[in-house]
């Protein structure tokens, strides 16, 4: 009863906010609707008992990725009218892509109904170690059966990160405006200030 109510609440909100993402006129509103959609998707995952994945969804997508989206969308000056003007021109392409996606979905569901397929043999034993809680279960699987894939994914992400840093790194800039923190920390009152005792009517020479 409670689960049913929660499921329909989350499911309806996911679909409604997903629709609002593509229909909202203001791009910032779109991003905020997208965040609502992520949230409700996380709620659905909690309902099926995948609380670890749900929390990761919120931490990674809502906490980091969507903040960057919001950042970029707020900084950019997006002219919605100009984007709408290109709609008719690009409509045939969009229709073709939509049809391909529909065909793939139908094929996928059809294939799923036909029965399972054998794709190679697993490297280690298929049954995960019997541990309680899906956080432990995911950890046990990632570091035993899928260790190679997990490490490979990590290395790919590391390479991507280094690539992004290399692309945006500017080696030398003008000396002016550059902060040397070590120099600032080493500075002390003796060398930064002078005490003067000016007499009346005379200025101070520094």
């Amino acid at each position: 009863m409670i689960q049913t109510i929660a499921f329909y609440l989350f499911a309806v909100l996911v679909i409604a906010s997903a629709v609002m993402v593509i229909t909202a006129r203001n791009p910032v509103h779109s991003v905020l609707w997208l965040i609502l959609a992520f949230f409700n998707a996380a709620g659905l995952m909690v309902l099926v008992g995948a609380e670890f994945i749900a929390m990761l969804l919120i931490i990674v997508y809502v906490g980091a990725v969507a903040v960057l989206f919001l950042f970029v969308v707020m900084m950019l000056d997006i002219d919605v009218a100009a984007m709408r003007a290109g709609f008719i021109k690009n409509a045939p392409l969009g229709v073709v892509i939509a049809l391909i996606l529909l065909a793939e979905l139908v094929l996928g569901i059809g294939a799923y109904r036909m029965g399972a397929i054998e794709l190679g043999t697993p490297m280690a034993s298929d049954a995960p170690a019997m541990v309680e809680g899906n956080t432990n279960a995911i950890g046990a699987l990632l570091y035993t059966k899928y260790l190679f894939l997990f490490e490979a994914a990590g290395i790919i992400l590391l390479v991507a990160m280094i690539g992004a840093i290399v692309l945006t790194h500017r080696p030398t800039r003008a000396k002016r405006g550059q902060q040397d923190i070590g120099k600032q920390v080493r500075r002390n009152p003796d060398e930064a200030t002078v005490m003067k005792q000016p007499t009346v009517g005379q200025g101070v020479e520094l």
Partner: protein
Amino acid sequence: MTEFFQSWGLSYEWAWAIATIAGILLIALPLMLAVAMIIYVDRKVWAAINLRRGPNVVGPFGLLQSFADGLKVFLQETIIPSAANKGIFILAPIVTFTVALIAWAVIPFDAGVVLADINVGLLYIFAVSSLSVYGIIMAGWASNSKYPFFSAMRASAQMISYEVSIGFIMIGVILYAGSFNLTDIVMAQKGHGLGIVNGYVFNLLLFPIFVMFFISALAETQRVPFDLTEAESELVAGYQTEYSSMSFALFWLGEYANILLMCALMTILFFGGWLPPLDIDLIPWFDIPGIIWFFAKMFLFFFMFSWVMATVPRYRYDQLMRLGWKVFLPLSLLFVVLISGWLMATGHYGAAA
């Protein structure tokens, strides 16, 4: 509590709903009261450090000052700037306040006194604390004004930066406790130091990350050395500039609820939560309820927060970013490696799993 309501002859669903709502009210209403009183404490501590008297007019010792302030903002007119994005402008303080409240669902105040004793408690706290930036970004953008927008940009960069090191620090504690569950983390600290001291902070590997956690918590809640988002000499009042009346008060309450949450987190992660400091019955302090120990420890940390506020000057923004990315990130990463290495070497890993 569900069983209690079921004994009244209610069905399970209704009993569950009523018990949950009662639990939420039992946490949220005292929290509001605590926020009001802690604002008073904050002002009294600053006043004492500045050799002033602080609030001393409303009620005995000025105790009712926060309620007078609350009444004042409640009776003021809510002004919405004509150029503001209305929906988001109104939503932003509500989001800030709600997000500050929902994290308390998993905080254990005493053994078993917790609304939702979930397995991923610490991850939930981390997820919720990463959400608190949205209220600020939305407020800054919807105000349609330059200073709030600058403040929102600063806030989002700052909170994302310090969340990284907070995440690594939490991993250190999780590795030691072997669990994400906050109750388990507290229980794992029982007799941690030489069999008698309760608390991870007395561990040589965990004390440095406690210090980093305290500083990151200051940055995450935008308290004084890092309150660049509302630096009044540069940004008027930051993201709150265009807000008035209750919408301003919601930001205020949310900010203090977040600070209290960080105090509670430090208590749970490093100072043994509701356990007394030592695991031996020196004076009969096992008779003192755990919740009193919990609040006493939280109060100690809150005092440290206001102490810092009254004594430390504000950072420059580039210094803030440097501290987050170039000092705390490598250091916390190093401590993750050190702690996991030590646990592997001594064979303590996976003990509580």
